[in-house]
């Protein structure tokens, strides 16, 4: 069992009567990289700002290594933070920015310079110490901001959408770099993002938030494959929804497009004749050419999107439509628009969400 580092206990925060964090309980392990994922207004940034100390919780506690830090001012918490808009101090060069926290802590100059140099190497910007922030690109500025936050060896790192202001390519490379540095230092990190792909790729665990509540807390694999709520299923990744009717609740069968299929995930509460939504990821649907899947449906290709390594097809099934992903194969061109296709779905991949 991993060691608990940060514990959030029944945290509540309202702004002017509007409750944005509604009793959140969380527990993060030491050295873990956790993402707070959700749409804007879900409370993720507010939770992060309460951990940093910029907002005061209306009620609830935040414990770091078992000690309540709610009463501490932000400058007493020893928590590093990286902001969306870099927030480098414009009047200081890169070295002075990185060394600021050390200077405040009273570290003598020689040690400070050594530590600054070490941080510059860590972020791959050796030799940039004398530059001013405005002379750096966005990605470089954000790396400096990361180094500045890490220089005083904080006990925890908070990242507030640090990648949203950057170009797509830099976003991916910097996110890998952040993750690598985080692993190297083993620092507990909380990362706020609205980008599910970002969260899935970088995190040890993800907290999916919606309207101030935790929808699900788990590893990326679990969040993606076993979403526990409709919100998580639709917010994280693409989801197909097929409308079906319960044929025999006891036998877990439903009627779908004129055929009766068995759905192991059909909840026990389902009643005969009730309408249900069957959902599955696009990659769980395949072109059934020879493949053996227990649900087989016929339809017509409505749209073809060539995404590179993956081809996404939208297939019109008459009363339903599904998206399916197939890998690109240079020997087999994708079916043409309007072509009749047969699709297969493994019934074990189907989730049933309540309507």
């Amino acid at each position, binding site marked *: 069992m991993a060691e608990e580092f940060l514990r959030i206990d029944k945290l509540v925060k309202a702004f002017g009567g509007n409750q944005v964090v509604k009793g959140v309980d969380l527990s993060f392990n030491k050295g873990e990289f956790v993402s707070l994922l959700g749409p804007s207004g879900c409370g993720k940034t507010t939770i992060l700002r309460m951990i940093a100390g910029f907002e005061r919780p209306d009620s609830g506690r935040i414990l770091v290594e078992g000690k309540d830090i709610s009463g501490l001012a932000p*400058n007493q918490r020893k*928590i590093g933070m990286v902001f969306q808009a870099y*927030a480098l101090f*414009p009047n200081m060069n890169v070295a002075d920015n990185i060394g*600021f*926290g050390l200077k405040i*802590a009273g570290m003598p100059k020689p040690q400070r310079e050594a530590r600054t140099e070490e941080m510059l190497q860590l972020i791959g910007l050796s030799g940039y110490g004398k530059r001013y922030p405005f002379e750096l690109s966005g990605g470089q500025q954000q790396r400096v901001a990361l180094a500045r936050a890490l220089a005083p060896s904080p006990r925890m790192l*908070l990242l507030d959408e640090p990648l949203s202001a950057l170009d797509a390519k830099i976003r991916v490379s910097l996110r890998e770099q952040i993750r690598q540095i985080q692993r190297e230092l083993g620092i507990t990190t909380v990362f706020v993002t609205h980008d599910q792909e970002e969260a899935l790729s970088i995190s040890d665990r993800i907290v999916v938030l919606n309207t101030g509540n935790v929808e699900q807390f788990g590893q990326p694999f679990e969040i993606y494959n076993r979403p526990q709520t409709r919100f998580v299923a639709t917010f994280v990744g693409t989801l197909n929804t097929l409308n079906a009717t319960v044929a025999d609740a006891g036998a877990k069968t439903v009627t779908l497009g004129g055929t009766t299929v068995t759905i192991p995930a059909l909840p026990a509460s389902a009643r005969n004749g009730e309408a249900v939504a069957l959902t599955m990821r696009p990659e769980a649907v395949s072109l059934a050419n020879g493949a053996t899947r227990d649900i087989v449906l016929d339809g017509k290709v409505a749209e073809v999107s060539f995404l590179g390594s993956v081809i996404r097809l939208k297939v019109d099934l008459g009363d339903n439509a599904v998206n399916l992903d197939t890998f690109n194969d240079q020997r087999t061109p994708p079916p043409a628009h309007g072509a009749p296709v047969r699709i297969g779905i493994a019934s074990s991949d189907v989730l049933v969400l309540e309507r």
Partner: protein
Amino acid sequence: MTNVSSAADTSAGPVSTGPAVRVGGNPFRFFLRLRLGDIIAIAPFIIFALLFLLIPTLGLVVGAFQDPQGNFTLQNVMDLATPQIAASFWISIRVSVTSAVLGAAIGLAIALAIIRGKLPSGIRSAVMTFSGVASQFAGIPLSFAFLATLGRLGLVTVLLKFAGFDLYKSGFNLLSFWGLTITYLYFQIPLMILIIAPAIDGLKKEWGEAAATLGATNGQFWRYIGLPVLWPNLLGTLSLLFANAFGAIATAYALTGSSLNIVPILLYAQIRGDVLHNPGLGAALALGMIVITALANIVYLVIRTRAERWLK
């Protein structure tokens, strides 16, 4: 109001050159393109600037180095060192520096309070509007207002006496260095607020938060980040406030008559009645004023250039 701040902004900032001109490759094209319409457009401004700004001022500078017969002399400038004139310069500089520094400090404090102090938002716009008015409320009426407030029969004086405190017996006099300084603050503080407010808006909230997560106290934030970032603006405004006070005469004249002999009042008396009995000395007095305001601006420009490294 916006005009005041924008005018001052420019004095406190690098002059922008605007969009690039579309002049062709041939260097003579510009002159070829200089049509009659262009000349008519720019001529009134140039003639006006020469006749009513540059030549009259230069005439005084030249006059400062001429004796009554028109020969070159340094006597006028050296005569500035006579005790009466030197004392005038000294008190003028003291009043200007004190009112500029206090005006800047108090104006900054008020601007910070209304912008970053989490006061209701209506207060900010009310203060800005009032500052626009008060920064222009100078001269004769301002001196009347302070006579009615802190004069011997002024409301505050009377009320304090009623409360058992005799302001004038305690050594205060409106017709004095401190009296004049307090009066000048009435236009210096609003001017500061108008000019510095946009600069304070430019301080990002995240800088303060970043500093806090790095362990800095609020005071350390202002010492290492807030004030250094505002510094060029503060200095620019300071030199403007200094010039503003140094050249002001109407307020002091109506307030103190000639009992407080600041340089502009001395010069005023000289122009009126040649009290120095030497026209060249008057010009030297003017030269001294020009040099001092110019120096204030040069100091500002030098410090600003050094700060330019990180100013985009």
